[in-house]
């Protein structure tokens, strides 16, 4: 919690954008020329967490690190990588935390099963409320 508090303080104390004096990386704020590639990159960026922000995707953040990650995503997509490969590479580096799409693994089975379990539970609770049509 201390660590998060520190990040928050840093964010609130300093101008959120000017983390360093370096100019932003190419493609941090520049769209890809191919609209299909840009669309794929944009969709992926919306599913990646900005690691130094409070609950923002890298597509929605002014932080420098988000800009660097956007540049990386666009460059890799432009080089012909599939979005899932880019995501996997980032997850390997930064952990599941970086992806807003939870992985499907034993740890998250309850999460993905929740909708079905909830519908079943609700239907069970309400089962006596109906009268059969006669």
């Amino acid at each position, binding site marked *: 919690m201390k660590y998060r508090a520190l990040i928050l303080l840093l964010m*609130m104390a300093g101008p959120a954008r000017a983390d360093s004096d370096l100019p932003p990386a190419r493609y941090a704020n520049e769209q890809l020329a191919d609209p299909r590639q840009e669309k794929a990159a944009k969709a992926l960026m919306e599913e990646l967490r900005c690691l130094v922000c409070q609950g923002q995707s890298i597509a*929605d953040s002014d932080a420098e690190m988000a800009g660097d990650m956007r540049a990386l995503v666009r460059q890799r997509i432009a080089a012909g990588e599939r979005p899932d490969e880019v995501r996997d590479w980032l997850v390997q580096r930064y952990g599941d935390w970086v992806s807003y799409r939870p992985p499907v693994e034993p*740890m998250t089975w309850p999460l993905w099963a929740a909708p079905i379990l909830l519908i079943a539970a609700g239907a069970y609770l309400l089962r006596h409320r109906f009268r059969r049509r006669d």
Partner: protein
Amino acid sequence: MIAEAGLASLWLAAALAALQLGLAAGLGGTPGRQLSSIRAVAIGQGILTVLAFASLVLLFLRSDMSVLLVAENSHSQKPWLYKFSGTWGNHEGSMLLWVMVLALAGAILALFERRLDRRTLGATLGAQAMLALGFFAFLLFASNPFERLSPAPVDGRGLNPLLQDPGLAFHPPTLYLGYVGLSVAFSIAVGGLVRRNVGPAIARAMRPWVLAAWVMLTLGITAGSYWAYYELGWGGWWFWDPVENASLMPWLAATALLHSVNVLAARGGLRAWTMMLALVAFSMSMVGTFLVRSGILTSVHSFAVDPTRGSFILALLTIYIGGALTLFAFRIATVKEGAPFEPVSREGGLVANNLLLSVILGIVFVGTLYPLLAEALSGEKLSVGPPYFDAVASPLALLLAALMVIAPQLRWRRDAAPVLPRIAPGLVVGSGVLMATIVLAPGIGLLPRLGLTLGATLVPASLQPLLNRSLRRTPLAVWGMCLAHLGVAVSMIGMASDSAFTRERLAAARPGDKIEVGPWLVEFRDITPVAGPNWTALEAELRASRGSGVVVLNPQSRFFAEPPTTTNEAAIDTSWNGQIYAVLGEQDGEGRWQLRLWWKPFVTLIWFGGCLIALGGALALIGRFFRERRPRRRGEDAFA
């Protein structure tokens, strides 16, 4: 002096809450006989809490820097509106506002409630006092807003500039009225369960509170969403952020409760289920408060980060929610159910509505808390965000919309008439729109396409209950229902249109450059420095033209000195068919300015729909007031 007076009022109010609880529990005589004293105490408690809150507002308006909270969150150079709204732009102040609404709701209930029998009302006011007591303790022992600071600093540290916006002045109070208004439904349910008196009278007493709280929640969420849209400067309007989910959960529960309470009031059915929802709705408000106020979640909204306070609220949550559910479990067997009904009936539709809303609520709850659970169990951090919620909740929301096409037109108990003629107008319009999107916009995703189709189907369908009846004699509640359902349709169309048709352009530009976005040609003309009351800014002049129409957009990059922060002020121009949205970013190494431009067709319908929903709720509420002042006719209560 003002601070001490405020603190004293707060202590006195807490003492009165304890007294109220004692009287309701039967200390000093039969609670039924004590009702007039319980009432008086509840009103006194409300007045004292308002006084405490008023003292804090006064301290903020006078910029009294000898009070710690003011010094940490305000600044003498701030415009008065933000001094005022700064009162609740921090942890202690917002908790005091929360508690004030709680005590005030109790006082209003004590003043005006005449439908409940004396003992049930006594028990209800006791439950309300018990809730208030815990949160008074939280304020007094863990979040004292009136703490002094010595020596007093020359000036304060200022309010987070993101929060210096008219939107903030009204967003939290509106939301809190909704959150905490649900406490009365909770207390009435507790009162009814304690007195073994769960029936239509309980539902009628509960209904205006649920309606009012729901209207406020709807307005608060709508306003908050628009605030995030224009203030955060990224063109998004909903992020499935935990704090947004925290406000969505009580709204979902209240929406379900709003529908089931009508079944109970009109038909005597769904008793246990309605009591359960009433308990869940305010529990969700408390869970939301816990999530936001404890700082347990990392999120854009976590302006208060303090885990020790978190454990205090968590303890309160456990006691109240656990206690209520235990009471429910013990009394559930004594609750008699009303007459059963056939699946195809108004009740059947409302049960399906409740089931779907509750499942969506459960999904949001699980998705929001899962990362915490996973981290606690495995130490691994994972994120649950828009991809999960969109994939899981959207189909259910679309199903709910499909249900809305027919359910309001079904009869109570049993409906054997053919359904098709009643939904024909909607089907015609809906299939027309579906064809149009397939022909004109083949590339859009499945969800937006279904959203547009169902939204269009719902527009005529939501107004259909008004057909074949004398409009002048139609109860306001029916108008309200139709309007609210129309609002859902309008909002859905806006959401679908935004996600299907938005055009985005990012560009590095010099004055003189021209950029195309959607149907617009935007010319970057100039960049100039400007100054406001407590900020300086760089302002771009953009001339956007579309056909013969020309608009000038002035996005700003603002710098605040206290505390030092830069914010983007987006420039937005609204036309009948959408918004053009411009943000000025930073300058790159070669002297070009970063511009972000969006064209968002019909995006405004999202919030316009939200306002229609709230207006529908308000009409229904007004209708109830007038109706209850007239002598009731038999069978009149059916909410259609």
